[in-house]
């Protein structure tokens, strides 16, 4: 029975994630539509509920084109390299006190490490397409993701210092009284900015900047391979929102002792708030320029994250506050 669950669990998670992606895309289009005075998709199915399904079907039956001068092997390989890590990182995510696949000691680092593999996939995709826009998109993406990984990791060091563990379960347990968003507000701001950048979303959507690079690294991809890139992007939204919830919003812990709802429901609520925030930001912000992006990472976010670490270590020694840190 246990073995069966072991093999079946990931499949169920994959289905849940695919379902999430389907409706996250719809929700994104709806939310952005409302913000812009439109109603969003409403033609396929009641209230547009089947819109994404239709889109996916369209992508699946589309002709699979590979540019003549592309590096065919890498062209085919890169969507897989980009997508697989996106799903693999979910293994350590504690969705509630029971629902988690593995509980490894270095869960936080595991997330950061595995998610950075996607960069290679994107870079290879951009290069293998043999298209200049794709190449520029791929290069930008590599530069951006490597740069923003550093403030991303640094911003959570404060939490790691406070909890004394890299384990995501321990981090959630430590937030039973106070969520880390309050003592670690600086870390939170840095983390949110870096995570939006890691997700390649507006205002940091340079790798696929439509108005400049047409579509960036996936400009030559069509059909199913393109769908994989999109899937990777939205699975990362799932993963990153979960991580934000776990790290800063108390995971499955109920606020104010409202424990009448089960932990997973609280998790979903917090998670949805984070996802909505991502959509909201996307509908509002212009795109930052690529050199400003790098400068921002190295000259603003990194020093701020470092300052946050120092501040945390200092506050840890202050008698009154030591309770929070």
């Amino acid at each position: 029975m246990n073995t069966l669950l072991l093999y079946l669990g990931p499949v169920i998670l994959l289905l849940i994630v695919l379902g999430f992606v389907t409706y996250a895309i719809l929700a994104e289009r709806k939310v952005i539509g409302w913000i812009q005075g439109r109603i969003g998709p409403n033609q396929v199915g009641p209230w547009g509920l089947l819109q994404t399904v239709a889109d996916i079907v369209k992508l699946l039956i589309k002709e699979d084109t590979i540019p003549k001068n592309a590096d065919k092997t890498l062209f085919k390989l890169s969507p897989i390299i980009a997508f697989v890590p996106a799903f693999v990182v979910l293994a350590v995510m504690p969705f509630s006190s029971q629902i988690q696949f593995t509980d490894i000691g270095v869960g936080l680092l595991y997330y950061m490490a595995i998610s950075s593999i996607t960069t290679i996939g994107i870079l290879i995709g951009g290069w293998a397409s043999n298209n200049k826009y794709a190449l520029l998109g791929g290069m930008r993406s590599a530069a951006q993701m490597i740069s923003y990984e550093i403030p991303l990791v640094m911003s959570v060091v404060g939490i790691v210092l406070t909890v004394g563990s890299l384990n995501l379960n321990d981090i959630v347990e430590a937030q039973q009284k106070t969520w880390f968003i309050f003592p670690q507000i600086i870390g939170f701001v840095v983390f949110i900015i870096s995570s939006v950048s890691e997700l390649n979303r507006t205002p940091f959507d340079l790798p696929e900047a439509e108005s400049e690079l047409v579509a960036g690294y996936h400009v030559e991809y069509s059909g199913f391979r393109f769908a994989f890139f999109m899937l990777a992007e939205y699975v990362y939204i799932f993963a990153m929102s979960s991580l934000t919830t776990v790290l800063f919003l108390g995971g499955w812990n109920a606020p104010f002792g409202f424990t009448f709802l089960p932990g997973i429901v609280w998790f979903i609520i917090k998670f949805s708030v984070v996802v909505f925030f991502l959509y909201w930001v996307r509908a509002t912000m212009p795109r930052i320029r690529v050199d400003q992006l790098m400068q921002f990472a190295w000259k603003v976010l990194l020093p701020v994250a470092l300052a946050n670490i120092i501040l945390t270590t200092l506050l840890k020694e202050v008698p009154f506050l030591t309770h929070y840190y």
Partner: protein
Amino acid sequence: MLGLIKGLNVTLKNMVKPKVTYNYPQEPLEMPDRFRGIQYFDPDKCIVCNQCVRVCPTDCISLTGKKNPDPNQKGKVIETYNINFEICILCDLCTEVCPTEAVVMTNNFELSTYSRDELFKNSEWLFANDENIRSENTLNPIPVKKPTGGTPS
């Protein structure tokens, strides 16, 4: 940072505002009276003065007239009247010069077809296109003698 927050506030406020899009293909769009859609042509009113052909900037109108079958009447009656809608730019000049309001604009604008041939509109088609006819058309009617008689039989 303040500017970004202000911007977020604006978008959030707009989210709850009423939506401005039309449910267009399901609900037909009402165009104002003066809207320039495809022409309606009434052969009975036409006096074959050829003004519309001359004024058309894209030469999309062609017509032929014949002698009035009624020997008592002077002038001509229209025989064929065609608008090549591929090149018509709906500039409204033909209805403006028509002294008898034989060619007038309608509000019909859904004109897409699957074949270019269908865009060649002859006088039967234009005569059948008699819905949503614009109420005011010729702005400078020339006082011409109304073609008397010409009983439609």
